[in-house]
Structure formats: C-alpha cells, structure tokens
C-alpha cells in the first residue's frame, strides 16, 4: 500500500463536486431548506442534479470504466467489443476511445445515470434513501445503465416508471463487491483499483468545516451509518501536537507520533461545504463506521485463476 493516494490528481477520474439537494429552482422565496416547493431531499440517493452525474454509487461505476479506458492501451478487440458502441461513448468522465483504439481527445464531461437508479430501484425507495447494494443490483438487473441524455432527470421518481429497457446502455458492470471491513485492505484496493463507495454515520458533518475528524464510538456510532460517500484517497497530516513539536524542535521530517493518517472522501453537498466538497476521516479507527459497507463495481469477468491444491 503506498503511503498516500489521491485519485483527484488523476485527470478525468473524479468528476466535479455536485449537490444532491439542489433541485430545479422554482420561483419563490428561499426557505432554509431551499426554495419553496422545491423537492429538496427527495433525491435521497446521493446524486447531483440537474446533471445527475457522478455520485458515490455512480462514480464507483464510472471510475473503473475511466481508468480502464486510460490506464492501458486500448486494443480494438478488448475495448470496443466490450462497449459495442461507436466512438463518442461518454463514460461520464469525458474520455472517448476512438475506433482505432487510441484513447481520443478529451470531450466535454457527460454524465451517467442516476435517474434510472431512482425509477428502477428494486425497493422502490430511491427517494427515501437508497442502499448502495440496491443501486448496484439495479445496474445488474438492467444489464447496464443509460446516459442521462436518454434518461433525463425529472426531479421525482416513480418506481413503476422504470424505462431502462427502452434505452441503450452506455455502461455496465459485471459484478459489485463488498470489500472486507478492514482499512488496510480497503486502502490496498483503493490504491490499485479505484474509488470505493462507503456508508458512514454523518452525524458530525453538519458542523464540519475542515481538517481530519477523529471520533470515538461515543461521538460517532460506527454501527448507525446513514450516508453514502465516495472514498477517493488517503494520506497523512500533521496533528496539532505535531505542528507544536515542529515549532519548538528542528525535526526535519514528521515524527510518526505526530502525524494523523486520514481518508479523503468526496461528498455531494456542494463545493462550498467542507474542504471544497471533500472531507477527511481518521484512518485506522473505523471512524464513523467507514468499514461497514465498502462497495465497488467490477467491470471484467473474473479471470479464472489456475487451481491450487491445499496440501493434505
């Protein structure tokens, strides 16, 4: 596991910060929860509006796609066959692979799909807050996802209005995985595979401004998770004591005792919340239940490993 990892630094992997409750604005006085009459909060699966784009769940789908498109040379056989579509397939992060198999020019960012998740969610409760696994099951059951161009967001969901079968799929997954509830293996997967959707207790986030949150089970119950966000990196920062110690001594490098390992998480509450839309949680203490439901998508079919046999 590398000491630090930040997928925000890889161009085209993480989309811009969205706001899950900024519904279409209708004229009228502004209420604390938005404009009068706007259906704020109804779109409870965190996804941005009006451009339903990368959410914690959809980003997890978009991210690995994007990496594959850029992370290794495209051969016409493997890439195009999988996508079975002419060039100009927007992967939600704006990269296109041309017919010749050479990664194409960057295109304007388009979006994937969250309206479909709301309408086709198997529990029909997309608007009361969806579960991560339901979103992935919906993707699998629909054999893929349509783009928002084909499946526009209407601001309210009707579970029985699932139009998925009517639209061409632009992205699909082979499977989704729930990772081990272990921060070391989550870090390894994040660093080598890509972003992961996690579900945390968001209790401390209402008053959060910046810095690394290090909570106790008493101040942030790791069992009561209620908000899905996207895990995009990890690192270490100096603790307050570290900064003081550094001021009075001549340590040239941070002393392990004074550095705080943290996770970098992407939220969907707009860019003027937290650290430009992101926040950091302490890494190594299951702060706010970050290890409870780590989910990610898998694009490739499982590669058959050669069989091994356990000695008798």
């Amino acid at each position, binding site marked *: 596991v590398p000491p630090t990892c930040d997928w925000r630094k890889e161009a085209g992997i993480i989309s811009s910060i969205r706001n899950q409750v900024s519904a279409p604005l209708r004229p009228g006085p502004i209420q604390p929860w938005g404009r009068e009459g706007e259906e*704020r909060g109804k779109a409870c699966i965190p996804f941005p509006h009006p451009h339903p784009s990368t959410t914690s769940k959809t980003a997890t789908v978009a991210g690995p796609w994007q990496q594959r498109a850029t992370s290794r040379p495209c051969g016409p056989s493997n890439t195009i066959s999988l996508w079975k579509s002419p060039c100009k397939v927007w992967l939600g992060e704006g990269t296109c692979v041309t017919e010749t198999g050479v990664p194409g020019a960057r295109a304007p960012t388009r979006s994937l799909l969250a309206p479909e998740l709301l309408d086709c969610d198997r529990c029909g409760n997309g608007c009361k807050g969806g579960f991560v696994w339901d979103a992935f099951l919906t993707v699998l059951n629909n054999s893929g996802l349509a783009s928002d161009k084909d499946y526009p967001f209407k601001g309210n969901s009707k579970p029985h209005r699932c139009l998925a079968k009517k639209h061409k799929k632009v992205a699909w997954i082979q499977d989704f995985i729930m990772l081990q509830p272990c921060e070391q293996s989550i870090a390894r997967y994040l660093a080598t595979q890509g972003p992961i959707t996690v579900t945390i207790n968001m209790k*401390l986030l*209402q008053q959060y*401004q*910046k*810095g690394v*949150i*290090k909570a*106790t089970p008493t101040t942030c119950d790791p069992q009561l998770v209620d908000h899905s966000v996207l895990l995009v990196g990890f690192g270490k*920062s100096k603790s307050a004591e570290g900064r003081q110690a550094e001021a009075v001594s001549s340590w040239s490098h941070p002393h392990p005792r004074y550095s705080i390992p943290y996770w970098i998480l992407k939220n969907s509450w707009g860019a003027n919340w937290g650290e430009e839309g992101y926040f950091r949680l302490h890494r190594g203490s299951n702060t706010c239940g970050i290890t409870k439901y780590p989910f990610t998508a898998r694009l490739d079919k499982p590669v058959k490993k050669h069989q091994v046999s356990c000695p008798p």
Partner: protein
Amino acid sequence: GSLRGQDPGPQPLELKEVFTLFQIRYNRSYSHPAEHARRLDIFARNLAKAQQLQEEDLGTAEFGVTPFSDLTEEEFGQLYGHQRVAGEAPSVSQKVGSEEWGQS
C-alpha cells in the same frame, strides 16, 4: 470561522451579527419574523454543538458555521441522510441479472 481555540460562544449581539453574515453568505431569508427567531435559536444551538464537537475531536477537525447551521439535526438528517442502516451486511440472495444477461 472555526471555533477551535476561541472563547466560548459569541455574545447575543455578536450572535445576531454572525447569523446575519451566515444569511448573506448562504443566501438565507425567512418569510416570518417568528421563523427568523426560530432559525436564530437553532443557529445558536448549532454553534454551541460545534464547540462541543471541537472539544471532543481527537484529530485536527474544525467545526463551526456551515451551510446547515440553521437546520435542526432532524431536518439535516431528513434532507441529507437516508435511512439508518444497522445490523449485519445484506444477504444478497436475489437471482441477479436479467434474461438478457451477457448481451450487454
């Protein structure tokens, strides 16, 4: 700004000024004076809560005024969170994939 290291909470007059700055920064207005008074009260409670979180935090986090400082914890949970998930991991038993499996 953040509350880390500040003296305990603003004075009443200061509170109103801080609340007015909050309204300007986050584009808030309230239709009735009673609603304004109620939101000011919620705002004050949230500032006190932020102070407490600051003291309890073991990391480098800073708590203070945010876009949600005029919402009660319940409103905030309803607007931004979803149903609380407790207990064990889901047993995903449903047969996955539709008849078209393998086509797309």
